[in-house]
């Protein structure tokens, strides 16, 4: 290669030609044009509304536009709101009972699925099936099954000579029904656990077997620790999902005549449901926004706490 040819190549590599620069600019413009609908949608339907609700949480909102600042009044009001207290307690009950159950049962189901060699695929589909049914359709299905008079559960109880149960009529049973509905639709959690379990190195089980570990010891000492990262992920996702619990409890007791129906003794009133009532039934958008932001901050703090705690535990291990 001649010296002049080498120089010319170095120049080309170090400083782009004017044509290349224009091409890159055109690429950027084309890319922006293609992504513009999504970016505009994100800004219009997510970013801007979120920022608006932040402002609204400090305002007495009038939808006609004549809103006024009220400072932290809504946040002070939250401390005295008995209904919000009920919603927080209910949400914590659902989370405290439902989330551990969901994780343990999903893990157990994943272990079972893993042990089914040939039948794994059809059973995996069966477990996942409820997840693909839209929430509204599945809740209405449950509503029919839990019906006090014609529901399939009470029909079975009647056939066995047992008294009917007020599945949606008594606080304890109503909450139980919600948790059962959530567990029924935990297919995603099961599948993620199953995927994680299938990646555990076979050598670990062989070593355990040589050491004389039984089935239970293997689960405790190999399976469960091996999916710890997945459990942290499931815990965070479950924590967020239970914090925002709405569709199941709202649809199970929704009636035309009572827009604030929340089950017996408000036993199904969750924080998200209360936000909906405040905004769309009581037209108090300012207070609803304040509760929504409080929920967001608590959920964020809780999620970070779970992740940090998990990191620390893993570090110690």
């Amino acid at each position, binding site marked *: 290669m001649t010296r002049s040819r080498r120089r010319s190549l170095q120049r080309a590599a170090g400083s782009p030609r004017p044509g290349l620069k224009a091409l890159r600019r*055109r*690429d950027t*413009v*084309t890319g922006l*044009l*293609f992504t513009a609908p999504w970016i505009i949608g994100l800004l219009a339907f997510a970013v801007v509304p979120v920022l608006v609700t932040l402002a609204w949480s400090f305002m007495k*909102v*009038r*939808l*006609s*536009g*004549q809103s006024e600042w009220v400072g932290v009044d809504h946040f002070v*009001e939250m401390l*005295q709101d*008995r*209904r919000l207290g009920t919603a927080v307690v209910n949400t914590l009950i659902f989370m405290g009972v439902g989330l551990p159950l969901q994780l343990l049962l999903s893990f157990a189901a994943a272990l079972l699925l893993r042990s089914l060699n040939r039948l794994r695929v059809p059973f995996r589909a069966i477990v996942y099936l409820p997840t693909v049914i839209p929430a509204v359709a599945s809740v209405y299905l449950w509503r029919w099954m839990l*019906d*006090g*008079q*014609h529901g399939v559960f009470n029909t079975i109880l009647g056939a066995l000579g047992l*008294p*009917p*149960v*007020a599945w*949606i*009529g*008594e*606080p304890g049973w109503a909450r139980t029904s919600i948790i059962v509905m959530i567990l029924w639709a935990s297919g995603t959690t099961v599948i993620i656990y199953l995927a994680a379990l299938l990646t555990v190195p076979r050598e670990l089980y062989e070593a355990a077997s040589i050491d004389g570990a039984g089935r239970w010891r293997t689960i405790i000492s190999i399976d469960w620790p091996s999916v710890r990262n997945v459990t942290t992920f499931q815990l965070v996702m479950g924590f967020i999902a239970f914090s925002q619990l709405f569709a199941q409890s709202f649809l199970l007791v929704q*009636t*035309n*005549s*009572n*827009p*604030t129906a929340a089950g*017996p*003794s*408000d036993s199904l009133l969750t924080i998200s449901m209360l936000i909906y*009532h405040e905004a*769309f*039934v*009581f*037209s*108090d958008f300012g207070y609803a926004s304040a509760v929504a932001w409080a929920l967001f901050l608590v959920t964020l703090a809780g999620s970070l706490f779970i992740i940090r705690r998990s990191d620390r535990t893993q570090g110690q291990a």
Partner: protein
Amino acid sequence: MTVRRKLSRIVAAGGAVAVLMGLAACAGDSSEDGPTKITFSYLWAGDEAKIVESLIETFNESQDDVVVEGISNPDGAAQLASLSGSRAQFDVSDHFGESVGAWVDQGLLADLTPFIEADQFDIDDFVPESIEPLTVDGNVYSLPLSAYTYQLVYNKKAFEEAGLQPPTTIEEMLEAGRALTTTENGRVTRLGFGPVQLKGMNWQLGGEWTKDGEPAPTTDEAVASLQLYLDQIAGLDESAVRSFVASFGDYWSADNPFFNGQVAMVIDGPWLISMSERYAPDFEYGVVEIPVPAAKPELAGTAPLNVSTVFIAANSEKKEAAWEFVKFMVSPEALLAFNVPTTNIPARSSMAASPELAELGPNYQAFVTSLNEGQLKYLPAAPWTVEYGALMATAQNEVYDGTTSPQDAVARLVEAAKGLGE
């Protein structure tokens, strides 16, 4: 031409088409040379929607200035979202009177007073109590399509078998309730009356929910209202009673506990008549005034009132045309066409004696008489009206679920009510 350039042109052309479509949509609303087109978005569906569509058709055929397009959209949240936009997605809609105060506070409803005055519209023909819950600071924001008073409806066969007459006092109602409540092997098989609504019963006992226009419940009557149901079921296993109540079927069905004999008397509205025709055509029942305490005969005729309304959206740009349609919807002809099939009550006093209403029978007439001659009770139009009603419902549910006493529930309600007025 490079592929990239072609794509850029396609994107640009797509954007241009979108802009043109938007402009075309705007131009479509223009009505310089033809009738003004307005939209009536209503919450009804099913048979009621058919009646509304037929009324819209009648209106459109009756004149050439305004064309109404009807949209059935039984979604309250969507209705509220549309009302809060800068530009109306509908011009006229309907709702219940209880929402008027909050929506006026939000600036969502057009003030109808200037139209009423300019047109010399005879608002005095409406029962005054049906207009007052729609009025804020002397201005009217909605007009009533139907007014609902509540009455005591009783199962004739159950009363005859027990040798009872319909009650005329609260004491008689409690006595009849106990006599008609039946059990079998410890299980409740029928209640005289179901869980009593706190809001209405407080008025029946002479109580009030407001003082000087602000939320302030009278405590003695509110406690007595909640105690009434508890007194009826005293001595029964409370959990058995709750299980029985929880087994009640859907209200809008043949499983309605009144139709299937699980409850012998209910406090309900006139729509129960058309419901019974649909779901329980052979069921025999009677309608009487809701009883009042024997010691307070001056309360006779007291009845809770609710109103179904039609209004113009504040963000409508065609309020004049919308007013023409609202006027039609509350005209005697339209009110008859809407209320007779649904057995609701037109709120115009001049229609009380109309033969079409008389044909609906004595049970229906009891509701008409109550509307026109009774002592009607309602919450005023205020920003807190709906929330106050929800607080009352919570208090009553807590008592009937056995989680608190009537005294404690009412004490908490009094405290919560103070917060509403602030």
